[in-house]
C-alpha cells in the first residue's frame, strides 16, 4: 500500500490534483455565483423541450420524446460545463489572474496544469450530470439503476472536452478565440450529435462526421446507460472518448509548455 501511495504522490495525476484542488477551493469560495444557473437551467430546458416540444413530436421509436432528450442533455451539459471552464475559465486564470505563473514557481510544470484543468473540467461535468439526473428523475424520465453510471460517464465526457479545450487555451492569443471555438465547433456539434433527434435521416456524410466528433458517442453512451440498454458497442465509445482525451492532453501539454516556458 505504501509503495502505491508513494507512486501516486509522484505521478502526474497527483500533481494535477493539486491544481484541481486550487480550482475547487475557488469555486467553493464563490459558490453562490455558480449555483443558480447550474441548477435552474436543466429543469427549464427539460420542461420546455421535453414536454412543450415533445407534445408535438410524440415518440421517437417507442420512447417518449422527453425520455429520449434527457440523456442527450446530460451529455451536452457535461460538454458545455467542461468546455466553458477549460476555455474562458482557464484562459482567465492563465492570462488575467496569473494563477499559472505562481504555480510555475513551485514544482508544478505546464503539463501538470493541463492535467489538473482537464480533471477539473471533468469534475464540473460530473456535477452538472447529477443536477440533470435529478431534474430528469423528478419528471419521471429515469427508470434504470444504470442511470447512476451516467455520472462517471459525464466525467469521461467532460475530460475529453476539457482536454480539447485546453489545446485551444494553450494556443489562443486572445480570449476572443474562444468565441470562434463555440460558434464553429461546439454549437453546430450540439445540433447534429443525436442529442435532440436520431441521426438516421441526416445525409451519410454528416452522419460519418458526427460519429467522429466527441458529442455523438458521448450522447449515445449516456443514452444507453440512462435507459439501461447496455451493449458491447459502449466500450468502443468509452475507448473513443478516452483516446480523444489522451491525444488532446498530450497536444495541450506541448503547447502549454511552449507558451509558459520561454
Amino acid at each position, binding site marked *: 500500500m505504501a509503495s502505491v501511495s508513494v507512486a501516486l504522490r509522484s505521478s502526474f495525476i497527483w500533481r494535477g490534483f493539486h491544481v484541481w484542488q*486550487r480550482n475547487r477551493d475557488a469555486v467553493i469560495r464563490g459558490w453562490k455565483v455558480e449555483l443558480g444557473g447550474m441548477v435552474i437551467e436543466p429543469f427549464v430546458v427539460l420542461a420546455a423541450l421535453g414536454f412543450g416540444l415533445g407534445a408535438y413530436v410524440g415518440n421517437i421509436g417507442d420512447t417518449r420524446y422527453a425520455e429520449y432528450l434527457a440523456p442527450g442533455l446530460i451529455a451536452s451539459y457535461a460538454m458545455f460545463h467542461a468546455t466553458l471552464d477549460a476555455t474562458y475559465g482557464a484562459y482567465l486564470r492563465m492570462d488575467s489572474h496569473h494563477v499559472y505563473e505562481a504555480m510555475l*514557481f*513551485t514544482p508544478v510544470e505546464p503539463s501538470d496544469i493541463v492535467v489538473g484543468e482537464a480533471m477539473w473540467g471533468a469534475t464540473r461535468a460530473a456535477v452538472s450530470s447529477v443536477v440533470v439526473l435529478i431534474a430528469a428523475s423528478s419528471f419521471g424520465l429515469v427508470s434504470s439503476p444504470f442511470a447512476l453510471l451516467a455520472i462517471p460517464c459525464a466525467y469521461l465526457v467532460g475530460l475529453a472536452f476539457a482536454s480539447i479545450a485546453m489545446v485551444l487555451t494553450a494556443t489562443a492569443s486572445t480570449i476572443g478565440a474562444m468565441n470562434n471555438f463555440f460558434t464553429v465547433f461546439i454549437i453546430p456539434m450540439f445540433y447534429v450529435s443525436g442529442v435532440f433527434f436520431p441521426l438516421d435521416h441526416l445525409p451519410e456524410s454528416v452522419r460519418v462526421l458526427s460519429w467522429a466528433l466527441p458529442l455523438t458517442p458521448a450522447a449515445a453512451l449516456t443514452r444507453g446507460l440512462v435507459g439501461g440498454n447496455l451493449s458491447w458497442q459502449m466500450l468502443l465509445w468509452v475507448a473513443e472518448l478516452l483516446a480523444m482525451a489522451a491525444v488532446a492532453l498530450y497536444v495541450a501539454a506541448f503547447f502549454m509548455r511552449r507558451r509558459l516556458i520561454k
Partner: protein
Amino acid sequence: MTPSIAIEANRLTKDYSGLVAVDSVDFSVSKGECFGVLGPNGAGKTSIMKMVCCISPVTSGQLVVQCMDVMRQRRAIKSVLGVVSQADSLDPGLNVMQNLLSHARFFNIPGTLAKERAWAALDLFQLREKASASPDHLSGGMRRRLLIGRALLHEPSILILDEPTTGLDPQSRHLVWDRLLQLKHQGITMLLTTHYMDEAAYLCDRLMVIDLGKILAEGTPEKLVRTHAGEQVVQIQTLAPHSNGLLEQLEAQGLDYEDAGDSVLVFGDTSSLSKSESSWSGYHVVRRPANLEDVFLRLTGRWLRD
C-alpha cells in the same frame, strides 16, 4: 562545482530569437550569501532570475543550482527555491489563507503542517487579521509581504527576490528588510534584484552591476564604491552650459569627474578634493560620501532605457 556554492553560471546566455538579453555571463553565489543583481531596465536581470527559476530555458552556457542543472532537474530545483516575482502573482480567486495553503500543496506539504506554517508566516509579516480577506482588498505593502511569506512556506534554501520592495512605502520597506536580514542570519541564500541602491547596500554581501546583458562590475558594495567612485563626491550645480572653463580646470588638475548635465560630479579621496576646492568656488556645491548610486550611474550611464 563545490557544495558551498548555491548558484553558478558559466557563459550563461539568453537569446530571445535574436535579442540577446543575457550575454555569456559568469557568476556564482555562495551558500548563505545575499547576492545582488543591479542594472537598469532591460539589463537582463529578470532574464537571469527566470532562468534560475527554471521558467525560461537557457540558450547556451551552463546554469547550476545546488549541483543541479536548470535544464534537466527543474522540479528538484524548484522545490528548493522560494520565489518572490516582480509581477504580483497572488491568486484573486482565493483568500489570503487559501493562497498560502494552495501554494503549500504544490510543494506536497501535508495539510496540518501547511496550516501551522501559514499562520507563522502571517504572524511574521503582520497579516494575521487578514487571513480570510481577499488579496484584492490588501494594500500594496501587504500583498508584497504576503508574497514573501508565501515563498517561505516550504522552507526554501534559496530565496529569489525580484525587486521585492518596488512601490512600497518606507514603513513596509523596512519591515521587509528586517525580515530578509533575519532570514539571512538563519543561513538562507538570496538572489536579489533591485533598483534601490540603499537596499542593495543594506542587504547584499556581494553584487554585480549588469547592463545590456553583460557584467560591468562585481564585488562587495564597499569595494565597488571605492573602485568606481572613490571616497567622496563633490556635486557642483552648474546649470549648463558650463561657463568659466570649469571642466578644463578639473581636467588640468587630473581630477576624476563626470559631466551630468545640470551638474558636474567630482570623485576622489577627501584630501585631494580639499586641495582643489578653489576650482568650484562660486558654485553651489554639495559634498557627500560616495555611494552605490554613483557607481551605478557611472557604470551604466545616464541615458533613459524606456
